[in-house]
C-alpha cells in the first residue's frame, strides 16, 4: 500500500483530515438536504400564501365591484323614483289646483301646457327604462326601414330646442355629407331617434347653463355615416371615457350636479351595436367639453 511508507503520525493527520472533510461534506450535504426540504416547505408556503393573498385580493375586488354595482343600482332606483314621481306630483298638483281654485283662462292654458310637458317627461322616462331593458346584445339588425340620417338628426334637434326651451343658435346643425353620398341607414327608426336624442339631450344637460352644441352628419371611408355631437360642457375625465357607456354608470362629479338615471349612453351604445355601428366619446378632460361620435353603416344602395 502506498500509504504504508508514510510515518504513522502523517497517516493519522491525513486520516483525521479526511474524516474532517468527509464530516464537513456530510454536514454540508445534510445541511443542503435539510435546507432543500425547508426550501421546499418555504416555496410551498409561499405558494399557499400567494394563493391565499390573491384569493383575498380577488374577493375584495369582487366585493368592491358588487358594492359599487349595488350603489349604482341604488342610485338608479332613486333616480327612477324621482323621475317618475316628480312629473306625477306636478300633474296632480295642477289638476287639484284647477279643481279647487278659480283660475283665469290664460293661467288655465299655462297649467295645461305644463301638464302635457310632464306627461311627455313621464313617457320619455318609461321609454328609456324599457329601452335599456332590451340589453346590449350585439346582434346586427339588418331588417328595418331606411332612415334618412341628416333629416332625423335635424328633427331631433328641433325637438330638443323646444323641449329644453333653448334660444335660437344654441344648437347648430351642419350636414357635411357630399352630394352623392349615401344618407340613409337601415334600422329601427324609433331606436335611432332615441340614440341621437340621447346624445343631444346629454350635450345640453351637461352644458347648462351655457348651451352651445354643434351637431354634424358626415361620411367616412368604408361607407359609414357619422353623427358627431360636440358640446362645451363639463367634459369627461380620461379614465371614464369608456365606462360612461355602462348601464347605471355615472361620473361621480356629475351625480351631485345633474340628475340622471345612468341609462342614456348605455342605450346609445346598445342601439349602435344592434345596427352594426358603434359610439365613442372624446374629451380633453374636466371642463373641456366632450365630443360623441356615433358611427352607423350606410344602407346599401337600392
Amino acid at each position, binding site marked *: 500500500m502506498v500509504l504504508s511508507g508514510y510515518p504513522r503520525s502523517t497517516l493519522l493527520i491525513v486520516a483525521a483530515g479526511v474524516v474532517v472533510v468527509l464530516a464537513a461534506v456530510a454536514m454540508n450535504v445534510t445541511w443542503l438536504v435539510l435546507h432543500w426540504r425547508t426550501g421546499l416547505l418555504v416555496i410551498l408556503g409561499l405558494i399557499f400564501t400567494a394563493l391565499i393573498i390573491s384569493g383575498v385580493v380577488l374577493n375584495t375586488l369582487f366585493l368592491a365591484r358588487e358594492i359599487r354595482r349595488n350603489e349604482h343600482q341604488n342610485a338608479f332606483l*332613486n333616480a327612477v*323614483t324621482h323621475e317618475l314621481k*316628480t312629473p306625477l306630483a*306636478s300633474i296632480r298638483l295642477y289638476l287639484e289646483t284647477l279643481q279647487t281654485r278659480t283660475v283665469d283662462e290664460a293661467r288655465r292654458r299655462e297649467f295645461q301646457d305644463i301638464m302635457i310637458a*310632464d306627461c311627455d317627461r313621464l313617457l320619455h322616462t318609461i321609454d328609456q327604462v324599457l329601452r335599456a331593458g332590451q340589453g346590449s346584445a350585439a346582434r346586427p339588425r339588418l331588417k328595418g326601414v331606411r332612415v334618412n340620417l341628416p333629416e332625423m338628426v335635424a328633427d331631433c334637434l328641433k325637438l330638443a330646442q323646444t323641449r329644453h326651451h333653448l334660444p335660437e343658435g344654441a344648437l347648430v346643425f351642419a350636414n357635411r355629407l357630399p352630394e352623392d353620398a349615401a344618407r340613409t341607414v337601415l334600422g329601427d327608426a324609433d331606436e335611432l331617434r332615441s340614440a341621437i336624442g340621447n346624445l343631444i339631450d346629454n350635450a345640453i344637460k351637461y352644458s347648462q347653463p351655457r348651451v352651445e352644441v354643434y351637431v354634424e352628419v358626415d361620411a367616412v371611408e368604408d361607407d359609414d355615416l357619422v353623427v358627431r355631437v360636440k358640446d362645451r360642457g363639463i367634459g369627461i375625465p380620461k379614465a371614464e371615457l369608456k365606462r360612461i357607456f355602462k348601464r347605471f354608470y355615472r361620473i361621480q362629479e356629475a351625480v351631485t350636479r345633474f340628475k340622471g338615471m345612468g341609462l342614456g349612453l348605455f342605450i346609445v351604445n346598445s342601439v349602435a351595436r344592434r345596427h352594426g355601428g358603434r359610439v365613442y366619446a372624446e374629451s380633453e378632460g374636466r371642463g373641456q367639453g366632450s365630443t360623441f361620435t356615433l358611427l352607423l353603416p350606410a344602407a346599401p344602395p337600392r
Partner: protein
Amino acid sequence: MGRILIVEDESHLAEGLRFNLEAEGHEVKVVETGEQAIEEVRRDGFHLMLLDVMLPGIDGFRAAAQLRSEGRFLPILMLTARGRPEDVLQGFEAGADDYLPKPFELKILLARVRSLLRRSQWQQARPPAAGPPAGSRFEFAGKTIDFDRLEITAGGKTMRLTTMEANLLRYLVAREGKVVSRKMILDDVWDVHEDTDTRAIDNFIARLRKYVEDEPSQPKHLQTVRGTGYRFVANPK
C-alpha cells in the same frame, strides 16, 4: 300669513306650489339649490321652508342639518319623491319638522303648512323668556347694542344682528355676570326642551364674539365657563 321659502329645482312643481301658497295669502320665494336655501334663511327670516331632498349640490338633508347646526329653527317641511321609511327617518334626523312624500295631495300639503305656521306663531306669541335690559339699548366698553333695530355698533362700525343672535345676546346681557348653562339657553332662548346637540349654541357664541370682542380668539366679554356654559361681563377687569 307667513313668509314661505320653497326650495325646489323642478320648476313646474315650484311654480304650482307658489301659485297655491300665494292664493292662500302667503308671501313666497322660490330658490333652486341647497346653497341658495341656506343663504336665504341666513339673510332673511322665513316662517316656513318647503324643502325638496334631491337638489343639485347640497341636498335637502344636508341643507336642513346645516341650518339646524347654525341654530336656525324655522319649521321645515320636507317634500320629496323618496318615501321609504329610511328616507323619512333620515329627513327627521336632519331636522325636518314634517315630511311629505311626492306625489302629495294639495289639501294635505296646505293643511300641514297651516299647522306648522300656527305652531311657530304660538311660540312667537309667548312672552320672551328674557326681557330686554332697561331700555332697548345697552352700552358697554364703547359698544352699543340696539335690540330694537337689531344692530350692534363697535368702533364706529354698525353690524346687523339676526333675530336669534339678538335674542341670545339679550338673554346673556340680562344675566350680566352670571353663569348661564347651555341647557338654559336652549330652554329659554330657543324654547327647545329636548336633549338636542348644544353645539349650535357654541357656533352662535362664536359668531357673537365677532361682534362684541375686540379679539374674538381671546374673549373678555363673552366668557366660556368650562363645563358649564357662558357668562357675559360688560366691564371685565
